[in-house]
């Protein structure tokens, strides 16, 4: 067990990098997913097709393949995902600005993949709003965008928060794949390194990595259970 004490800094910095990755990807996924959800319910057919195609492709494709495309496809398109070097953000999240692009690829892969699931969670929330609400809004003359902004989305948000939470938990767990796709210093990558390069015993390292992920996922899961129970009572 001494590895947990001796290499505490490795685990801590791994956890911190994983946390950054998850935070940025969650923001990206929420933006992409909301846009896709609005597209999928919009009155304009081509927008709906684009949204549906996006969701179908990324929900049914293994994350591994999405990641391969982010890591091999983006360079082939001549991009190192430099569009993620957002001026203010790079000063807070230093890994965003470095020349080795794997952190940015990881964000792209995770947010694009998770965005599809976010879209479905939001849509399930929208479907949970009683149809009378939207009908009443339409009856008083609100347009499509007003209807969404003032009536449907605020209520859909409440119904969507629990499914959204499970999507984000799944995303945190998926982020462990980053370590196997060249993101050095991430939690799972540090764990693998400790066992293979430094020859540390496997089981303590496994426990350390597990604790790192459980710190992020279990409290979030408990919070969601709590929210779900409270909603069930309120109904």
């Amino acid at each position, binding site marked *: 067990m001494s590895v947990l004490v001796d290499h505490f800094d490795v685990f801590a910095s791994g956890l911190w990098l994983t946390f950054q990755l998850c935070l940025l990807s969650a923001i990206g996924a929420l933006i992409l997913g909301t846009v896709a959800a609005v597209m999928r319910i919009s009155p304009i057919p081509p927008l709906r097709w684009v949204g549906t195609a996006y969701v179908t492709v990324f929900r049914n494709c293994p994350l*591994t393949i999405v990641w391969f495309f982010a890591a091999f496809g983006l360079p082939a398109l001549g991009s190192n995902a430099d569009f993620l070097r957002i001026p203010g953000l790079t000063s807070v999240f230093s890994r965003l600005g470095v020349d080795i692009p794997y952190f940015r690829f990881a964000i792209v892969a995770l947010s694009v993949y998770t965005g599809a699931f976010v879209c479905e969670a939001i849509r399930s929330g929208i479907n949970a709003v009683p149809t009378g609400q939207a009908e009443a809004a339409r009856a008083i003359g609100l347009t499509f965008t007003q209807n969404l902004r003032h009536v449907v989305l605020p209520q859909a948000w409440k119904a969507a928060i629990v499914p959204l939470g499970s999507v984000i938990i799944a995303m945190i767990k998926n982020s462990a794949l980053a370590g196997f796709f060249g993101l050095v210093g991430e939690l799972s990558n540090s764990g693998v390194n400790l066992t293979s390069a430094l020859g540390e015993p496997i089981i303590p390292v496994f426990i350390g990595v597990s604790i790192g992920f459980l710190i992020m*996922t279990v409290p979030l899961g408990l919070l969601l259970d709590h929210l779900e129970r409270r909603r069930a009572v309120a109904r």
Partner: protein
Amino acid sequence: MKDQQTVLYDAPGPRARRVTLIVSVIVVLAVVAGAYFLVYRPLDEQGQFSMDLWGPLIDPDNEVFSQVWARLRDGFVATLTAAALAIVSSLIFGTALAVLRIQLKALNKRKFSGLAAPAAIALRTLSWFLSIVSRFFVEIFRGLPVVITIFFVASALPELGVDLGDILWYLVIGLTLYNMVVIGEILRSGMEGLPGGQREAAEAMGLSSFQTTRMILLPQAFRIMLPALISQLVVVLKDTSLGFIISYEEVLRVSGQIIQALPEPNPIQVYAVVGAIYILVNYALSKLAEYVQRRLARGRKTAALPAEQPPAALAAEIEPAAKV
């Protein structure tokens, strides 16, 4: 989905139809232009569309075409084998876990008042302890990334002296550990969601607690949760691709080998084809889940009002109109 969509906006008038048409055209143009300038042009400039790269995959006359596809087929067979074994064992262990947790919950309520005080206390402590342990097991394996579980199963088991020979089994164990917990929770929530009268009626008939779970609750939970179980199948199929981390020769690993073996490496083309096959299979599975869900919903309705249900052919036409 459909009904919510139609109430968000009115049936379009001439003006709205014109606006929709104009915006549609603009969107289509934007998508096509984006695809051309951002995807097609850069790829074309690098010669990614040349037949040298695509030939082995799509041209039957290519000399390596049949070899490539034979390897890909082996890879898919390996993927499906792992996925099938994992889903079957997760179903078995997941059901056992769900039954165990339901039984422990029932056991926790019992006071064992017929027994002597020390024995009763010991039994109650034991059942309390077991339910804590099972809860821990569930929370831990539900909260761990599957990649980590698979990776450490594959490296820790040999270290502990358990050598399973084939890498396949490490992958199956890793996938099972995660999915049994998920399936167990799906079934447990299905059983707990059943009307309380089911259990009470079974108990009134004199069935024991285990008999009630096995004969009354579990079959109904399976039925209600069938769509969720099929969706879990999609998840397992996708997660099987993580086998490449422990160098199990599933389709992604095989693709990597193909790419390296070809005279001109073509990762983008091979992964595109493999991804497309994955998408097709999983899309079919999720459609199946939707279909089963609809069938189940219809089944419940007929059970409630047998007389008023129109013939199935009519129902399909009536339903959308009735919902608007």
